[in-house]
């Protein structure tokens, strides 16, 4: 057994102490990262239990949606398929990682209330569980991405390492947003509804289904949209397009500031979270 053999819990000792306790939670959650993986796999497996295709429903349903939307919009916008289909496929798949991680973040602590109220498991373990679950889903969706890029022969121009960097930045940012949603939803039960609405709105405001070139003079709204930069950093390199340096600046700054702020909120609310549930 690899769990800690010493546990100390004390009354309030100020902000610095709370911060140290939050750091310890983080450290412990990394030490038992395997548990988060196991829980995430269990979630995915149990969702598709009993179905013939199992988790490959994830791939199949996404594939159908991509083809449907791809063909529809390509003819509506009068765009060539080889250009539009891979574009929209990558958009839907990677934006799905963002919506999934953030929307499911709302349930992270609420669903874990049983375990949180009778064990000393690190709270962040459950945040990683949500993040990993979405990474596993992404793994299933990659089949579609690879199929698209192969069929329309994008590989010669695709910059895979740069896209991987984009995925890392995306997961880093999505995970703090997920933690933020988890804390807020535990305290206020209206938050999940708000988060779902915001993410839906964001999906239509972000060039997932449409080309940013159509935005024209409203470019400023794209530059101010963090989801645009998140998506661009992954999609553009795979399609052999350049990513603006500005996007990386935004993403790194957002990851750092986002994690600092969210972690501070986590440190402040950590001892109370279990009572919210």
């Amino acid at each position, binding site marked *: *057994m690899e769990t800690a053999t010493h546990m100390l819990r004390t009354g309030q000792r100020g902000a610095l102490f709370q911060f140290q306790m939050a750091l310890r939670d983080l450290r412990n959650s990394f030490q038992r990262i395997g548990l988060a993986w196991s829980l995430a796999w*269990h979630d995915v497996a149990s969702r598709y239990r009993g179905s013939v295709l199992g988790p490959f429903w994830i791939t199949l349903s996404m594939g159908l949606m991509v083809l449907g939307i791809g063909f529809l919009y390509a003819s509506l916008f009068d765009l060539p398929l080889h250009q539009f289909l891979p574009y929209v496929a990558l958009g839907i798949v990677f934006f799905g990682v963002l919506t999934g991680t953030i929307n499911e973040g709302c349930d992270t602590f609420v669903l874990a209330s049983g375990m949180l109220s009778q064990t000393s498991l690190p709270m962040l373990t459950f945040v990683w569980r949500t993040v990993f679950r979405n990474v596993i889903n992404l793994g299933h969706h990659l089949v579609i991405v690879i199929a698209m890029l192969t069929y329309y022969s994008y590989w010669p121009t695709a910059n895979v390492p740069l896209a991987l960097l984009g995925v890392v930045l995306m997961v880093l940012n999505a995970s703090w947003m997920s933690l933020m949603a988890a804390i807020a939803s535990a305290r206020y039960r209206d938050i999940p509804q708000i988060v779902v609405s915001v993410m839906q709105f964001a999906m239509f405001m972000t060039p997932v289904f449409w080309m940013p070139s159509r935005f024209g003079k409203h470019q400023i709204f794209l530059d101010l949209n963090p989801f645009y930069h998140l998506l661009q950093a992954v999609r553009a390199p795979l399609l052999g397009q350049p990513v603006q340096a500005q996007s990386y600046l935004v993403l790194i700054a957002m990851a750092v500031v986002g994690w600092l702020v969210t972690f501070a909120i986590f440190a402040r609310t950590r001892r109370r979270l279990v009572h919210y549930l």
Partner: protein
Amino acid sequence: MTAASITCTDLTIRFPVYGADAKSLKKALARAVAVGGALGRHAGVTDVTALENVNLQLKAGDRLGLIGHNGSGKTTLLRALSGAYEPDEGSIEVTGRIASLLDLSLGIDPSATGYENIRLRCRIGGMSSKQIDARMDEIAEFTGLGPFLSMPVKTYSAGMKGRVAFAAATAVECDVLLMDEWIAVGDADFQKIAHKRLLKLVERAGILVLATHEAPLLKLYCNKVMKLEAGVASEIVDIRKLDQLLES
């Protein structure tokens, strides 16, 4: 390995009770606007003191029984000892691996099979996949469910569910064992082997803290007893003085 120990010093736990109202953002915002800041926010939260200045010192070999009426703070104390609840004042220090059997259904997924649930529960308890593999046969045999373990837990009877949960929960090795109420599990046969297993666990575990209403069980498993009344703890006394404590 150091010997197991539990030390609580002036442990006080208060529950903020967030009314159904307070969880709504609208209400919180409305109040903040109407009454303004701190006062508004305070109005929605009531504190309930669940434990007050509890002092407790246990060392390896101590098997403490907690008695008290419903709502006297027994479960809160167990949850605090498990590390879930943090004190508002005072401190808790526990040395040793803690296993909490507060709720047998912890981490049980009804749609998963018996085997999967055992695996999941043991992972939560802190065992690695390898350790679980090594002990799976033993755990499976203990449940006595044989081929049924490959079927989803939702098809089980309540007794069968109890067997799986109990077998998995007690498979985890620990130095400090926390148990809430005695959850009667399974039929008479299973009760007998469950009892044996618990005695073994109690022997192996350095410390047992058990909350129950039943005096016979206390006498069976515990050598010390403490009474909680509205969050205030009595002295820890020897189990032989149980009757006196119950009368007081």
